[in-house]
């Protein structure tokens, strides 16, 4: 039995369909991240789970029991909001204990729970302050504390870190991960930050335009993107996508005379003459040293940017552009003609007409399990 199950959820505002049939089943203790660009319906889905919005059709089950029509307070969920949503004239202590107070939990039991949560979040010293006297990071801790003390079946987080600065965001991310490992509660977490998604999730649902584009582990999403959209959305810099045609059992890069080998696992699916999109992650590219092989990409270097840990290099192949993340001391300079290469296993093929990944056969799958 799933801890949380979402079945065929649809939601329309007037004539506009915001969610177009969402199905997800979560095991207890899973950390699901809903990842997608602004307006794709992440918050709407979260609000439907919380009971703050009503689905047009579909069902939501917690522990096998449908919770449609159940009041938000009786759903055994707790929610953390992007804006923290603290009660402005209550102290931190009462903010954290508010859910328990409203449920009539005895004062001493409430105090114990509040102190425990404050200890976990390291905000014991702030308990008697008002929210207006806290920094953004501290407010977010209080908001998380308010959810923690409820000890619910499911935690819902709606972009909880997006109002924090970069450094604090990193800290809180680690903290959330630690909390989840300790508490093992089921979590649904909304973000449009892919790093957050990759680092926190046990599974990621990449959403696009009211649908789930792909649902899988962070490794699957990163290594085996099911569509061009996912391939482009996850990873920074995003995956290189080269237009190509299957010609004589090889991949001919468009508007150039470069040909690279067609990996055997795609041999069945890639028909002769078919248009293809060749996907290669920038991290998979390196500067070739030896003689040219059938995995060589002759390029002209256009821009070289040192980001610190790596040298982000933009290069031209024919009329198309490529990005490569090279080691910081790679000897490349603007205007040079060089050859880049990669492992065959890193190559992904997509059908440009459907936008879907080409089915691969055989054992060469590179997912790291």
């Amino acid at each position: 039995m799933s801890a949380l199950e979402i079945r065929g959820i649809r939601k329309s505002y007037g004539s506009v369909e915001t969610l177009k049939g969402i199905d997800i089943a979560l095991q207890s203790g899973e950390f699901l991240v809903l990842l997608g660009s602004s307006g794709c319906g992440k918050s709407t889905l979260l609000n439907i789970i919380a009971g703050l919005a009503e689905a047009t059709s579909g069902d939501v089950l917690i522990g096998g029991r449908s919770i449609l029509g159940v009041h938000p307070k009786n759903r055994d969920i707790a929610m953390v909001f992007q804006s923290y949503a603290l009660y402005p004239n209550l102290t931190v202590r009462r903010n954290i204990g508010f859910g328990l107070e409203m449920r009539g939990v005895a004062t001493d039991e409430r105090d114990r729970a509040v102190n425990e949560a404050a200890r976990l979040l390291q905000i014991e010293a702030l308990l008697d302050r008002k929210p207006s006297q806290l920094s953004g990071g501290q407010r977010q801790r209080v908001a998380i504390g308010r959810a923690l003390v409820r000890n619910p079946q499911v935690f819902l987080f709606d972009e909880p870190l997006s109002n924090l600065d970069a450094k604090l965001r990193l800290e809180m991310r680690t903290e959330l991960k630690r909390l989840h490992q300790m508490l093992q509660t089921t979590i649904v977490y909304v973000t449009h930050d892919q790093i957050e998604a990759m680092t926190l999730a046990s599974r990621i649902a990449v959403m696009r335009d009211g649908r789930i584009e792909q649902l899988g582990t962070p490794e699957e999403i990163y290594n085996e993107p099911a569509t061009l959209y996912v391939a482009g959305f996850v990873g920074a810099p995003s995956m290189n996508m080269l237009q190509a045609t299957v010609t004589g059992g090889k991949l001919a890069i468009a508007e150039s005379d470069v040909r690279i080998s067609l990996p055997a696992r795609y041999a069945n699916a890639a028909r002769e003459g078919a248009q293809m999109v060749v996907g290669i992650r920038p991290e998979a590219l390196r500067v070739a040293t030896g003689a040219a092989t059938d995995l060589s990409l002759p390029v002209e270097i256009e821009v070289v940017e040192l980001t610190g840990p790596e040298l982000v290099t933009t290069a031209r192949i024919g009329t198309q552009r490529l990005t490569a993340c090279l080691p910081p001391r790679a000897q490349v300079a603007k205007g040079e003609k060089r050859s880049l290469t990669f492992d065959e296993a890193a190559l992904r093929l997509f059908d440009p007409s459907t936008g879907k990944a080409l089915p691969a056969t055989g054992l060469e799958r590179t997912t790291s399990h």
Partner: protein
Amino acid sequence: MSSTWMTTRAWLLMLPLLVVMVAVIGWPLVDTVGLSFTDAKLVGTGGDFVGLDNYSNMLSSSNFSRTLVTTTLFAVISVAAEMVIGVLAALLLNQEFRGRAILRALMILPWALPTVVNATLWRLIYNPEYGALNAALTQLHLIDAYRSWLGEPGTALAALIVADCWKNFPLVALIALAALQAVPRDITAASLVDGAGPFNRFRFVILPYLAGPLMVALVLRTIEAFKVFDIIWVMTRGGPANTTRTLSILVYQEAFSFQRAGSGASLALIVTLLVTLLAVAYAALVRKTAGSAA
């Protein structure tokens, strides 16, 4: 730019206004203060200096204390009712329903009408021979015979308070409605998930955002209610048997009906002082509540 120049320039810019204010407010005020120490009549000579006699006579007269009680009753009850009705109306109009926009616009009407029109309207409603209130209450079998609501000492003040509330609750509602827009959606949502019922939601979610603006409304309305003149003058002229006589009416009677300019002036200054005290007390309160909701 030096700060002294900024200060000088600010004063220079305000100078024309200051001149006008001194001319139309300052001078008459000084004149009134002078007048209040004399036994001047409205017409005739300037009167003789009588020291604080006007003040002591006025403060010790039973007329004054009765009127002060009436005024306080009027102000406290009508303002309290306006605040409650105004907030309830705002909460209602903040819900989403069909026709909300029309209702919001209609609500402002009583406040937008001139007081004289309002007062006349209510005189018609309270009319002892053909008033709507008498007709309605008779049809509901709540009263046996038509009554003179404004003519009986027992009901006149209450009738006035109702009329004043009807006129002024829209102002409170409008201010509250604007404040309600500032209540963050997320906090409302959080309180739902936390299990707060309507009462606790009002207390912990809505009130913090409402308190400051409501305080301002309370100050405005109390001071206005304390000075009330027009609606009472049109409806009852302070009668019957002086049961609806407020301080402003008393000032008018003293100065113009009884033509005792000196004594009227002293009363006017007493009222001014009371209202100023109210304003100062409230200003302190506003400053305190403004800090509570961040």
